[in-house]
C-alpha cells in the first residue's frame, strides 16, 4: 500500500523529471488562448487523479505526453465547435511585418493551431523536436503508418496555410 507521502513524492518526482519537456511540447501545441503552464498543470493533476494507472519508468513520459495531447485535442474540438478557427485565420492574414520574429512565431503558431491536435503533435514532434517515426508512434500510441499519414497531411496543410498567408500580404 502506497503511503500518502510516497504518493506525493512520486508525483513530485514525475513533475521534476518531465515538466520541462512537457512544457516545451505544451508551448508548441498550445493555440491562442491556451496557457502552456495550465496545460502542464492539468496534465499532472490528471496524473495525480489516476496515479495507479501511470506506468513506471520511461513509459511514464509516454503516458504524460498522451494525456497532454488528449487535453489539446479536447480543447481543439471545443474551439472548433465555437468557430474560433476562423478568427484565428483572420489573425494570421492581418500580420503585417514578416521580418519580425514575433510575427513569424505568431504565423507558425496560428498555422499549427489549424491542425487537429494529434496531427499537430505528430508535426511538432517530427519537425520541431526531431523525433523519428517509430519514436512518435511509441509516444502517441499510434501505428507508424498512421504517423506517416498524419505527417504528410499536416505538411500539406501547413504549406497551404503558410503560403496562403504570404500571398495575402
Amino acid at each position, binding site marked *: 500500500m502506497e503511503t*500518502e*507521502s510516497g*504518493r*506525493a*513524492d*512520486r*508525483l*513530485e518526482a514525475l*513533475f521534476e523529471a518531465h*515538466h*520541462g519537456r512537457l*512544457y*516545451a511540447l505544451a*508551448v*508548441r501545441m*498550445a493555440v491562442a488562448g491556451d496557457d*502552456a*503552464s495550465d496545460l*502542464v*498543470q492539468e496534465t*499532472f*493533476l490528471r496524473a*495525480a*487523479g489516476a*496515479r495507479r494507472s501511470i506506468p513506471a519508468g520511461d513509459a511514464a513520459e509516454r503516458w504524460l505526453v498522451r494525456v497532454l495531447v488528449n487535453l489539446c485535442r479536447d480543447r481543439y474540438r471545443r474551439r472548433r465547435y465555437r468557430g474560433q478557427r476562423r478568427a484565428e485565420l483572420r489573425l494570421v492574414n492581418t500580420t503585417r511585418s514578416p521580418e519580425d*520574429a514575433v510575427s*513569424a*512565431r*505568431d*504565423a*507558425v*503558431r496560428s498555422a*499549427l493551431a489549424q491542425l487537429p491536435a494529434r496531427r499537430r503533435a505528430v*508535426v511538432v514532434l517530427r*519537425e*520541431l523536436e526531431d523525433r523519428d517515426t517509430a519514436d512518435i508512434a511509441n509516444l502517441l500510441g499510434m501505428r507508424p503508418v498512421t504517423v506517416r499519414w498524419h505527417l504528410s497531411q499536416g*505538411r*500539406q496543410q*501547413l*504549406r*497551404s496555410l*503558410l*503560403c496562403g498567408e504570404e500571398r495575402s500580404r
Partner: protein
Amino acid sequence: MNDLDRNSLQARLRAGDPYQGEDMPAAHARRIRTRLRAAGSGRFERRTWLAAAAAAALAAVIGLGTWAASGPAVPREQAPTTAGEPAEPEARSGPLTTAELPRARETARVAPPSVRRAPRLPVATEVSLAVPPVVADADREPPRSEARRIQFTARRGTRIVWTLDPDFEPNTIRTEAPTAPRQQGANDPW
C-alpha cells in the same frame, strides 16, 4: 500551391517555433508543485469525500423534511382528529349501508360553524329522527336530510372536512350585481 519543399517548410517552422527554450515560469511551477503535493497527500480526495458525504446528508435531510411535511400515508384509524371530533371514515358518494347509518347520524350532530350559525336546528332534528332505523338497501339514496361529510387529506397533511348542508337549495333568486368591486361578497352569508 505547395511552394515550400520539405526542408523549407521545416526551416520555416523552426524559425517561427513558438518555444524559444524558456523554462516554465517559476511561480507556475511552484503553484503546480503545491497542488500536486496536496493531491498526493490525499487532501483533495478527503475534500471530495467530505463534500460527497455532506451532499448526501443534506439530500437525506431535505428528503425526510419533504416527506414529513407532505404527510406520510397514515392509516385512517391512526389519523389525528380535530377538536375532540371522533375519527370518521372517509365519506363516500355511494349509498349508505346499514352499518354506516349510526355513524352518519353522529356525523350530523357535529356541524361546522357555518351550519351552526344557520337557523336550521328544527330541520336538523327532524332529519335525524326521520332516518329509518334499518333496512339496508343498496339502491337506496342517502336521505336528503342527512348531513354528509367529505373528508380528505391535503398535501401537507391538513385534514379537510366538508359537511354538506342537507337542506341546501340553489338560490334561484336573482340579486343585483354589486355596483363596485369592493362590495363584492358583502351580502354573502358565508
